[in-house]
Structure formats: C-alpha cells, structure tokens
C-alpha cells in the first residue's frame, strides 16, 4: 500500500473497519430490507453526513456546534428549490393565478419568482450553491467568532441561536420559503422521476457512495499534519498559538469543511425523501445530530455512521410502539453517553477488542485505537486546568 492510500484508509484496521461498513450499507442492507425500510436507512445515512462532520469539528477540533442543522438545511433547501422549480413548470401549474411559480408562492399572492430563486433553475448552479452557500455562511460565522477567540460554550450557544433565527425566518417568510410545511411535492430530477422504487435504489447508492467518500476525505484531512494540529488545538490551544500557528484559521477551515459535508447530506436528504422543511434546521434536530456522533464515538468517523443508524432505528422503533417512552430514552441516552461512555461505541469497541485475540492483533498494529484512550485522558487533564 502506498503512503497516501494508507493514510486515507487509516491503516489496516481502518481499511477493515471501512470495508465492513461499506459491505453493510452497500450490500447487506439493500439485500435484507424491503424498499420502504431501505428508504428509511437512506434517510438516516443523510444524517450520518452531519455526524461525520461533527466528528471532525467536535471530536477532533473540540468545537461544539449546536447549529449543524443550519448547513444540513441550507443544502437541503438548495436542492429542494431546484426540484420545486422543475415541478412547477407552466403546464402543470396552469390552474394557478400565476402559472410557472411554485404553488406556495401562488397561495401567498406572489406574482413573480423572487430573485434569489432564479439561480436554482439550473442544476450546475444548484450544485454549486449546495457546496458554496453553506460553506460561505460557515466562513462568515467562523471568521467573526474565531478571530475574536470566541469558543467553547459561547460558540455553541451562538450557533444554536443562529439555527433558531434561520428556522423562524423560514417559517415566517411563507411566500418565499414554503413556511412551516417546507418545500413539498418534489417529483423529478431533470425529467427523471425520483419517486419510483428503482430511482430510490439509485439514490440510495449515490448517497452511500458519497458518504464513504466524505469519510475518506475526512480521514485524509485528519491523518495529515492539519489533523495533528487540530487535536493539539483541542487539548492545548494556547500552546499551539504560542508555537506560532494561527489557531483561528484552522478552526475556520474545519468549520467550513464540516458545513460542506453537512450540506451534501441535506441535499441527498431532499432527493431521497422528496421534501425539505424547517423542522430539520432548528435547535432540536441540530442537537440530536450531536448525539448521533456522541453515541458512535466522537473520535470515530465510522462510529458516527453506526451511531446515527442505531439511534434513528431506535427512534423509529420506539416512536412506533411506545411514543411516550422515546423521550425518556433519548434523554437518558444523552446523559448516559456523556457520563459513562464519552467515547461512544468506538470507545467500547476499543476497550473490549483487546480481549478477543483476533481483534487484539489488529488493534496492536494500528496507532489509531490507542489514540482514542489517551485523548480522553488528555481532555480530562485539560479540563482541570481550564
């Protein structure tokens, strides 16, 4: 294996872990589940993008954003705006008083398409918007805050407030955004019906491939020198600053990267589920996405995907049968993960892997597995000083 490849895959253990994940989401789940259940898994996997982005930002960077829903939502809305424009061609909207604009605009007495909808008539511009708009937004927030050395709890609260602002804004501006119902009735992508079973399979695979791509990209970033600096910054920010690094630029970069990854997830969500609404932007979804990453293990990119799948599967199962119990469980999960399993599933795996001979051999070869433990100890020490 050449060096770059081994960096991306994260050594032998990393490659095997990724192989198992790929086998699960690319082969086992599509074979074992009916289209409806697979659609649910596809939806959860779009949340996994956000969980992966939080592993980068929170687990490795020590920056807790309680507003990742902002970027998931921006990506999702950009996609939804394109699909909605395609669904509202003048022929199928002929009964409206102004044909050719989305139905909710017509209901809100708008007579022309607002200017910021215009770019979403073209797919290349839309894809560009999905990638650029959230990243730019993250850059603005990050620049304003990290340059002034705002971090920790303050950053968490301000991102949370921004998530709240954005969701109220979208709900309030019904004529421009579709309001609380969001953008619904999305039908085709460039004439290709996205609601059929076969389309859903294709989209599921595109989504899974993109997710694995994002994990590989994140691996690469984390295994580079930048990744080491990120860890160092999280544990001893002052020391990194005194060594001559501009800490804020690194923070801004990782925040932008995490925003972009979340936005891709949002766009894939819209494509697979067929609508986008403000309920995926506000405070509650943003913080729930943090728990996905925490359950999987805040340091583990692959763990984040398992964490997302498990929590969401649990949520679907329980809210179908015992809806009252679910909030208790979810709340308990938050408390238990933070208090007893700060490294999540990945931490439990690392702890018990040593007892199984075959797995022990693997983890001894990889320096990654040990890192998770030492890091926790260091975080505790850093906390004592802070």
């Amino acid at each position: 294996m050449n060096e770059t490849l081994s960096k991306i895959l994260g050594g032998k253990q990393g490659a095997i872990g990724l192989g198992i994940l790929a086998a699960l989401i690319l082969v086992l789940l599509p074979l074992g589940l009916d289209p409806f259940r697979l659609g649910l898994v596809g939806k959860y996997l779009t949340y996994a993008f956000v969980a992966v982005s939080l592993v980068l930002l929170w687990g490795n960077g020590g920056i807790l954003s309680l507003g990742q829903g902002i970027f998931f939502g921006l990506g999702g809305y950009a996609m939804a705006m394109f699909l909605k424009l395609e669904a509202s061609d003048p022929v199928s909207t002929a009964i409206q008083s102004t044909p050719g604009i989305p139905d909710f605009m017509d209901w809100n007495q708008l007579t022309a398409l607002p200017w910021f909808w215009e770019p979403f008539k073209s797919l290349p511009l839309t894809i560009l918007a999905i990638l650029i708009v959230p990243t730019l937004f993250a850059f603005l927030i990050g620049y304003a805050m990290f340059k002034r050395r705002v971090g920790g709890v303050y950053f968490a609260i301000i991102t949370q407030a921004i998530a709240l602002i954005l969701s109220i804004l979208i709900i309030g501006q019904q004529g421009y955004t579709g309001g609380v119902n969001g953008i619904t009735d999305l039908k085709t992508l460039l004439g290709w019906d996205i609601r059929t079973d076969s389309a859903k399979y294709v989209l599921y695979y595109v989504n899974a491939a993109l997710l694995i791509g994002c994990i590989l990209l994140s691996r690469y970033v984390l295994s580079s020198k930048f990744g080491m600096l990120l860890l160092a910054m999280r544990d001893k920010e002052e020391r990194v600053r005194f060594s001559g690094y501009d800490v804020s630029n690194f923070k801004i970069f990782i925040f932008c990267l995490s925003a972009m990854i979340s936005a891709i997830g949002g766009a894939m969500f819209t494509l697979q589920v067929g609508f986008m609404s403000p309920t995926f932007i506000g405070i509650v979804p943003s913080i729930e996405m943090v728990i996905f990453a925490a359950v999987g293990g805040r340091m583990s990119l692959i763990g984040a995907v398992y964490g997302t799948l498990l929590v969401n599967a649990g949520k679907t199962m329980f809210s179908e049968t015992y809806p009252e119990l679910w909030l208790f469980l979810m709340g308990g999960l938050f408390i238990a993960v933070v208090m007893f399993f700060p490294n999540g599933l990945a931490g439990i795996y690392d702890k018990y892997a040593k007892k199984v001979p075959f797995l022990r051999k693997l983890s001894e070869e990889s320096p990654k597995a040990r890192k998770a433990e030492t890091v926790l100890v260091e975080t505790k020490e850093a906390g004592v000083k802070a």
Partner: protein
Amino acid sequence: MFDYSMAEIGNIVVMQAFSGLSLFSVLLLMALGLAIIFGQMGVINMAHGEFMAIGAYTTVFLSRVAETYGIVNYYFLFAIVAAFIVAFIIGYIVEFALIRHLYKRPLDTLLATWGLSLVMQQIFRSTFGAKEVSAVLPEWLMGSFQPTPDIDIPINGVFVLVLAAVVTLGVFLFMFRSRWGLRVRATVQNRVMAGAVGINTKKVDRVTFALGCGIAGVAGAAFTTIASTGPTTGSLYIVDSFMVVVFGGAASVLGTIASAFGIAQAQSILQFFMTSSMGKVATLMVIVGILMMRPEGLFASKVRK
C-alpha cells in the same frame, strides 16, 4: 406603521413597552438563575427552562388545591415560595447526581442537561397531560387600570414586574451582602485558594446551582400569571434567556438586567410593527451581530482569562 396618528403611536408604544416589561420580568428571572450558575461554574444549564416549568406546574397544582378549599385569594404568595423550594430541591438533587461529575467538561454539560430537559418534559407530559394548563388567579391579580382612556395596563404585569424587582434585589443582597455570597464570589475568583481558606467549594457549587434553579422556579410562578403552561413552555424561553446572559456579559447582575430589558423591549415593540416572527428574528439577529463584534457582552467582567 404610518396608518396611525401620532397620539395613537404614542399609546401603542406605551402599551407594547408595558407588555415588553412583563416579558422582561420573566426573562430577567430566568436569566438571573442562569447567570448565577454560568458565572459561578461555567456551566450552561439547558434544562433551565424546565426548572421554570416546575415552578409553573407547582403554582398550577397549588391553585387547584386552593380552589377546592376556597382560598384562591390567598394562596399565590405561598405558591411563589413553594415554587422556589420545589425547584431548589430538584436542582440540588440534579447537581448532586449529574452536574458535579461534569464540571471539567463544559460542552458535555450542555448535552447532559439537554437530555435532562427531554426527560423532564416527558415527565410533565405524563403527569399533567400534553395540553396547556393555567392557574386560577386570585381576583386581586386580574383586571387592569387605565391612567388615560386609551392606555390599558394589566395588574398581573405590574405584579410580575414588582416580583422580578424584589427577587433581583434579593439576589443582589445575597451575592454582595451575605456571608454565603462572599463564599460564592471567592470560589468564582479562585477556587483553589477558596478551598485553602476553608470554604467548602463543593457545597458552594451545589447551593449556587440549586439557587439558580429556585429562581427559575419563581420565574415559573410569575409566568403563570401572564400565560398558560405546557410541557414545552420552558424550551420556548431558553434561547432567549441564554442570549440575555451572554449579551449582558456573564457574572454581571447589572448587565443581565440591562440586556433582559433591551431584548424584551426590542422584541415586544418590533413585534407590533413587524410580524411576530420577524420581530423575534430581527432582535436575535441584532444580538448575534453585536456579540460577534463584542463577544464579551455589554458589561464584561474585568477578569483576564
């Protein structure tokens, strides 16, 4: 805003300003508790809104008891004290069972207390039902008085304002004029030294946290006089109260008062002239903007970090 005559605009501003004062009182009570906890321990309590709901539900419960005995006119002052005590005790238990293990990890405290708030919301829903409930108010809290024929000022608003003033004064006296306050401030300034001179810093932490929760309970009691209470009532106010604390500058009572006043008035007056959601958006956006320019808040503490 141009459809009104000047006199009408004047009356509207006065009445909206007064309804802003009710919001200010509730926000101030919420934020005082949060600020005490945050300033003392660097811990943000995401379940603070639920402690407010505990106070509100306690008041509602007592009002029902009072109704069966026919003593509705007298129970309310007692209910305020009871709301404080119940929230205080629960806060004390929560600190002991949960918070004290997480002081070294402030970000994790956010998540754990969020989990706690979910559990508490579900407890409210299972106990009191998903519907909003309201307390039976004593007669002396109802009605309004009119200084001029066009201005209508509700009595309950005045009452809440007075309550907030009394509690703020109480907190001020507690923090700056009592032995306990001295210990709290010593612990904030230098935890290790405070411990060395014989202050039981763990006990100080616990009492401070419980006190913050107790004040949230009083906020809940005050809240029942102006609106009805549901399981998610607390979560509606939590971001606003965070903003008050951060905007005012943590650990500054004066800053908390000023920022609660500014935020409540801006929201209340803007909501009349714009739509209610846009008023809120505009207010929050201005605050976030100012915080980006001046992250330490309006009244920064002079401690270097």
